[in-house]
Every structure is written in C-alpha cells, then in structure tokens.
C-alpha cells in the first residue's frame, strides 16, 4: 500500500492516528531511518521474524487506537529467545482489549542518546518542525527548538546549534558524533511531510535513538490524522 492510500484509508475510517507500523512506513518513504520491524499475527510468526532480525528484539502491541504504549505495559524489550518471545506475546495480549493489527517485532536499537523529532500545525505559521531532547524525560527537560516548514539543511543545522543539549550530538562517552547530515535530512523530511500531507496534523518521533556509531533510527512514531489549518 502506498503512503497516500494509507493516509486516505485512515481518514476514511475516521482514525485519529496511524499505528506505529504505518506511521513508520510514511517516515521511511520520506527517507527517515526507522527501526527494522515486522508485523506478526501470531507467536510463531513473531519468533520467526525475531530470528530474521536477530536477538535481542522488542515486541509491541500495534494498533492505531493505541497512541501511548509504554504506559499500558504494551512494550516488551530485550527479548532474547523463543521462550521469552512466547511469554511476552501472551503478556501483551492479556493487557489490552483493543483489537490489534498484530504484534510488532522490532530490532532493539542500541544507543545511549535519544532525541525527539516532531511536527505540529500552528494556525498562523502552518506546519512547524520540532527537534528536542528525547526519551521519557522529554517533558521534564523541555529542550526543544521549532521552525516553520520548509526547513532546509542550513536551517536544520541552526536548530541543532540552538539545541541546549547539542553536546549530545558530538562525540559522547566513547560514542561517535551523530551523522549530522542525515539528521538534518530527517528534520527537513518532517517538514516536507507536513507541507505535502494536509491530513497529517501532528507527528511524534520519540525516541529517535543514536547508535554508538553515529547512525540513528526512529524507534517509536505516531502520526496524528486531522485536517490542518493551513
């Protein structure tokens, strides 16, 4: 299914959001690196996909109706074997009544540094892009910068310059500096998604994890559906 159809279907179904799996398809289509993942319909398939990806893996409940999974205990991390996979699968199913698209089996992206990228629509400025300190402390640290889309590479670099936690992006405790060019491309891409898709009102990518080699991937993502004001 192409990205436009994904969005159109969501609008037609009256969905408030896309599932994580579908959200990442949109991000990937715009060149934003996302974690490697598959949607499994049963435990057997989940195990099979985990072996393809390679342990350890992460399992998550996947549905457009579940926006915040961690709070509901619907994320299982550091799964290392068939037995652990099966047990985690059962645990997730007992914790939710929401009909699921399936269980997401995901590469476990290793990295100490977490960012957040996002999109919001302002009634006056239209689509605006955010980069911020990511992870569960996002709303405590409140280190964010915004720009109106479009955001070119120079503007994206300036956002990273303005970012208070910018030292995270340099060499950090034995980790390589982040691939800045690609990070800027990802920031620009968020703006492009906002400009090209009026039915997407907001985006959260949190966390975007930076690996020790400086590459990064969107590990969780949420695309909110709704007509923007501009």
């Amino acid at each position, binding site marked *: 299914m192409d990205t436009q159809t994904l969005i159109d279907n969501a609008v037609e179904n009256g969905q408030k959001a896309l599932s994580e799996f579908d959200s990442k398809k949109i991000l990937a289509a715009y060149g934003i690196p996302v974690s490697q993942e598959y949607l499994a319909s049963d435990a057997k398939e989940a195990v099979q996909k985990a072996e393809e990806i390679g342990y350890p893996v992460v399992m998550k409940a996947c549905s457009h109706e579940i926006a915040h999974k961690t709070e509901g205990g619907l994320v299982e991390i550091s799964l290392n074997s068939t037995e652990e996979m099966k047990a985690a699968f059962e645990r997730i199913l007992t914790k939710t009544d929401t009909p699921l698209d399936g269980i997401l089996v995901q590469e476990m992206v290793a990295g100490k540094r977490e960012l957040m990228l996002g999109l919001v629509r302002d009634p006056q*400025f239209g689509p605006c892009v955010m980069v911020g300190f990511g992870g569960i402390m996002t709303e405590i640290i409140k280190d964010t910068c915004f720009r109106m889309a479009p955001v070119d590479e120079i503007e994206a670099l300036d956002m990273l310059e303005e970012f208070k936690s910018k030292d995270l992006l340099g060499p950090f405790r034995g980790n390589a500096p982040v691939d800045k060019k690609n990070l800027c491309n990802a920031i620009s891409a968020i703006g492009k998604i906002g400009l090209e898709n009026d039915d997407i009102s*907001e*985006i959260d990518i949190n966390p975007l994890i930076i690996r020790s080699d400086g590459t990064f991937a969107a590990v969780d993502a949420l695309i909110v559906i709704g007509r923007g004001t501009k």
Partner: protein
Amino acid sequence: MITEINQSPLYSIANPKSIAFFGASNNFSAMGSNIFQSIFDLGFEGELYPVHPKEENVQGYKAYRDIMDLPVVPDLVIFVLPTRLICDTMEACGKKGIKHAIVVTAGFREVGGEGLALEEKLKGIAQKYGIRFAGPNCLGVVNTHKKLNTTFLNMEGKPGFIGLASQSGSLVTQMFNYLAELGVGFSTAFSIGNGASVDLVDCLEYLGACPDTKVIGMYVEGIDRGREFVEVARAVSLKKPIVALYVGGSETGRKATFSHTGSMAGPDKLYDGILRQSGVIRARSITELFDYCRILGELPVPQGNRIAIQTHSGGPGAAAADACGREGLELPNFPQETIDAISEFIPQTGSINNPVDLTYSKDQKAFFMGIPDALLRSDVVDMLLMYYLVPDRMLKEALGQIGNSEADDENQNMDVLNDYVAYMAQMLRQHKKPLVGFTFRNLSEIFPQALMANGIPIFSSPEQGVRALKSLVTYSRLNQKIQLQEKNLAS
C-alpha cells in the same frame, strides 16, 4: 515585497498632506482634542480639517459640519469617536472618496462579543470603498521626519532612525522622552491596534523600504499572517536589522493537541525559533528592545565575537567579562604589538590583560584616545566595551591637567570634552568596529549625552552593554545564514 514606501498601504497614513479629523473639539480634556493638538504642536505642514457637528472652529481651525463639505478629498481621516458612530462615519468618508484612515476608537474585536461582528462590519465597509486603515483600538502613527504625530502625547526629542511596529499603543507614544535621553528617536512608529486592515507585515514592508529607518523594532503579541511574516522579515532583515519583543498568549484558534510535540509547542518556544528563522533578533524586555535598536542602528556589524574590555575599575570590568562569558563573547589575549602600544598608558598597579584595567586613570586623554585607539587597531579585537567614570568634577580636573588653566570656563570645558567625543566618533568611523560604553553615572550628564549624540551608545550596566553587543553578533550570523540559504535556492 515593495521597494518604495509609496507602494505601501501605509504611505498615506504616515505621509498625509491633508487630514480630516473626527472627534476633536474645544474641550481639551477629550482624547480627540489632545490628539488634534499633538498634530499641530509638532508643526504638521499639511492641511487639517476638523469635522464637528456644532462648532464653527476647533482649536483655531475652521470646522466642517459634514465630511462632504470639505473642499478637498483629504489623504487621511482620523476617527476618535464613540464606537457606535464609527461604521457610519467610515461609510460617509468612503463616499467622499477618502482611501486611508486611522481608527483610534476601541470597542471592537478586543472586547469580544458584539465587538467581533462590529469589526467585521467595519472591514466590510472599508473594503467596499477601497479604504486601508490602522486600528481600530490604536494610536496611529508618528513620522518624525514629516512632523506627524497622531498620538495623544507631545512628541519630544529629535527625528531618529528607529522604525517601530507595535501592537501596543504605549510603546509608540510613551517612549519619546525615554529615547530622547538616549540620544535616539523614532523615524516612523506605527501603533496598529487590532490590525484589522493593515498589520505587522505591512508595517515591516513599509519600514523596510523607509529611507529614514535604519533599524526596525517590533512589539508583538501575536502574528496573524505567519507565513507572509517570515518571508517579508527574512527579506527585510538582509537590508536592516529587525528586533522583536514578543509577549505571547494572544493567539486565537490554537487547538488542543494529541501529540507530545503539540503539547510542547507553546507559543513562546514556537516564536523563539520562528523569529530566529525570520532573521529577527528577539529582545526579552522593553529596555532591551530599545538597547538593541540603538546599537544596531548606530554601529557597524563586527567581524567576529572577540571583545576587548577597558576599565579603570576592577569590579565593573570583571562583571562585564562575566557577562561576555554568558553571552558567548570571547575575550582574546592581546598580541605583543597591542601590549606594546598600550603599556605606556597603564600604571604599575594596572593590568594589560583583557580586561585592560587602569585601576585609576590619571590621564583622561590616554583613557579616551590612546588606549581605545590601540585596542580597536588590534587584529584580535572585533569590538570594544569601555567602562568609565567621569563625574563633572573629574572632568574639570582633567581639563586643568592638560594645561587648560581656564578650566572653570564652561565653554572651554565643552571644547575639550567635544575633542574627546569627536575623537571617539572618529575612531568609530576609522576602525569600523563597534565601540560602546557603560557607566553607573546618570545618562543625563554632559559626557554620556555628548557621546550618545555622536553615535556612541552608552548603557547603564555591563550586562546591558554586553547583551547589546551580542545582538550585533547575532544579527551578523542570522544575516549570513539567510544569505547562504538564498544563494543555495538560487543555484
């Protein structure tokens, strides 16, 4: 984007040759009468046509019963009438053929309820007749170079170079005296109130093209045409600096959000980034807004962020150095040639490091001429901040010291003082590097007044001076960034 001010809908509002006036009478306590008086007090050179239902003349001007009775179609009409009369009067002015108005009257969108509908009605009438207007709920305009002041306070001070676009009327009308003491003034200042017809973006375009305006200040509560604002501000900022004081919270239509990004996109953070993207320097207070405006309007942009500090007192110098650290300005070490050039002026107890500290200056000539000249000449110095303490008594002693035995003579005092000031102004021109001073003495004293009158900004604290210098560095960086972006777009 306009290139000449006469292409702007604000042109006739700021440069009228004739004005019709509703709401002035011979009752001097009325706001309309006050505003009318401000107009002729400043010596407005065009025609004034008060319209009044009963009076034969208003404050010495022949009054007209009806707008239709005016012998000409005036360039501008000003309304200071009760709210209920505005729409009908606007309609009558439209029939007369008037194309520009200032609606001082309040009681529209800002009061909510019926005010919203009334403002829409007013806009409709204006559109029907092709009228562009400032307001409602505003104080109009001050164009010092055209002797126009439509505010209720007397204009004080001289015509200046600060253009202002304000969503607060007070910032236009209540700053005359404050700015005059700092040796600066407005070129043209707009109070646009509700911005129903002309808004901040129109003001920015006008001031960008205005030849009397060297720097643009803005007081912003909310921007309605956001995307146009960014585009216009970026273009204007390449020609002249823009400084904005944003005090948020008045945006309408902000929706509840579902995402974390949305919950973190408070207007303050959003405007912070978007102003920077627009090439606009953000001020954090009214004082800072005008500090930045005067330094950006007076001084050249520095080549880098390296600063020399000169002082004859340890504390203020150290406080200035500390402020530089916080603002990201760098204090370089001086090369040998600079040290050689200044060491003859520095006493044993002083310091030739940065900050250069004389501890006590016996020789005022060295302090105001020799040392700053050598520092500004140095390749490692991009700008200079001087702390000085020159009470009038010290000034007299210094004059005596350089052989002026008639130091008590006021005129001769002034001559020598003017020599210092002229020399400093000349250094500014010669080295093309920013030079500012700070002092805790009252800025109304002779010496700071003379310096400021000659284009050397003086501040009342080291922090103010350093932050103002930083605004020059910020302007230069934002400007370079936008130029690079434009170049990439073109290629």
